[in-house]
């Protein structure tokens, strides 16, 4: 089994604050891995480093063996990491379908000349994109809403659209930042089904989540962050019974 993501002793400082301290982790192909931890543990910061939004103070990030530390987010996206955002960031005034098509940007090639002279390639690509996008929307139960504006969707649908958009980049690793945040039970269950489907399709996923039931249910391995430190890793069972984790969540007994 090959390693898709490898994080080598990443440290991130913001001024005097150490947001992440010497983090090591990996994700193998076709794995579903979770990152949990209390608020402010540095989970989203880690995502930001992996996807190139922040440059780490020290350490290395590898994508399938290639060093990608310090590369621009769009380069990393093209190389195969796609993410969703904790506070939804859709292209609000574009249709649902177009949001997904934007996700295919790096997998298509039509340039300015194709656009202006309406070449065959442009039409062919456009058709392929639309067909593929509709498939992703069917997968995420959004097909009916495909021509609506993204910002007119209900909250749960917006979260799913973010996943659809990220999937459209055909990533080697899908990074989901609190995909179930703010969802009600029914929506969470729907999401769970979708992620299970993605797993069957052989996708590799790294996800941050607060909802314990959700994480324990779906992840094969879990990393636990607290105050920027990696305090535990292992299977859901191992993590659940880890004393450090219990302390971090419930507070230490004196």
């Amino acid at each position, binding site marked *: 089994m090959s390693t898709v993501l490898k994080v080598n002793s990443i440290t991130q400082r913001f001024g005097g604050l150490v947001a992440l301290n010497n983090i090591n982790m990996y994700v193998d192909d076709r794995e579903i891995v979770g990152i949990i931890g209390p608020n402010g543990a540095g989970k989203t910061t880690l995502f930001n480093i992996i996807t190139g939004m922040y440059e780490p103070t020290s350490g290395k990030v590898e994508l399938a063996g290639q060093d990608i530390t310090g590369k621009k987010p769009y380069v990393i996206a093209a190389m195969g990491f796609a993410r969703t955002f904790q506070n939804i960031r*859709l292209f*609000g005034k574009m249709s649902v379908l177009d949001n997904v098509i934007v996700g295919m940007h790096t997998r298509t090639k039509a340039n300015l000349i194709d656009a202006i002279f309406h070449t065959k390639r442009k039409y062919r690509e456009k058709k392929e994109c639309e067909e593929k996008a509709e498939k992703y929307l069917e997968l995420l139960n959004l097909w009916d809403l495909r021509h609506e504006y993204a910002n007119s969707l209900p909250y749960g649908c917006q979260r799913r659209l973010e996943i659809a958009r990220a999937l459209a980049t055909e990533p080697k690793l899908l990074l989901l930042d609190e995909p179930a945040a703010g969802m009600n039970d029914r929506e969470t269950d729907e999401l769970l089904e979708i992620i299970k489907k993605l797993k069957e399709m052989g996708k590799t996923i790294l996800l941050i989540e607060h909802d314990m039931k959700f994480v324990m249910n779906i992840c094969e391995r879990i990393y636990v962050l607290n105050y920027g430190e990696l305090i535990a890793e292992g299977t859901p069972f191992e993590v659940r019974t880890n004393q450090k984790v219990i302390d971090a969540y419930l507070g230490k007994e004196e």
Partner: protein
Amino acid sequence: MSALRTALKKTGIMVACHINKIAFVSVLLLLMFPLVNQSAYTLRIATVAMMYIMIALSLNLLTGFCGLMSIGHAAFWGIGAYTAAILAKNLGWGMGTCLIASALVSGFFGMMLGLPVLKLKGYYLTIVTLGFCEIIRMVELNWMSLTRGPLGINNIPYPNLFGIVLKSRVEIYYIMLGLMVLTGLVVHSIVHSRIGKAIVAIREDDLAASAMGINVTLYKIMVFIISATIMGVAGGFYAHYIRYIEPSIFNTGTSMNMLIMAIFGGLGSIPGTIIGATILTVLPETIRFLAEYRNLIYGFLIIVLMLIKPSGVLGDVNMEYIKKRYYASKAGDKG
């Protein structure tokens, strides 16, 4: 009230479904216009209006579709105009080559300005373009040997296309019509392509766009250059058409008026831009009272517009989506 709304919605759907035909018929009508009316006055207004449509389209590509605001675009217009004027007068170049040169020179300046500035986010572009417009105007004012400074360049030769001198207003009208249609087609093609989707995505959320693999800076620079190039062509045409240019034409006030034309009709809407630019050119030209208080009225108009509908009259109206939604719902009804 609700009846009016339904009627509006129905008309909207009808217009959206037949927008290509409407555009085609409009161009046909514009082609036939000089056959019916040859008065110098109306032809002049029509020509100027079409030039402003071209300019507003260029600005709307930048502001409406990409979310970047420049208040110094008159500088590119001026660069194009001076390039064409100097080449036509001093070197005797024909109009075609002059326009190409105008486009290239303006585009080059757009690139020089865009390359460093567009890496930055936020309000910087707006401030820098303002400064750029002033610097260019000062160069035009002070570089006496090239631009004749405040005297301006007069007696610019009549447009000369492949050796044929075009003196009549009708011919100039047709040249402008051609340029406008070309600009419209180019902007339309860009907006409805893969690149156009990337551009709009950048406007909506540049961070999310970069996470989707879009090279935000590159596309911003590209749009800026395209927009500057179109402005250059419009400027080259203007120099040939008006035959006298001087630096004060190309100041920030002009840039503002151009921007207002682009915003009024609707940010991110090509039909809106065309309608807006037409209204804002034709009304002050035909109503004396409006001409005198033009800028004052523009000021009030833009503030009221921002309060009522910040994206302009037809802003946020996406014909393509309306059409698709309509056909989808029709297909849904049958199935």
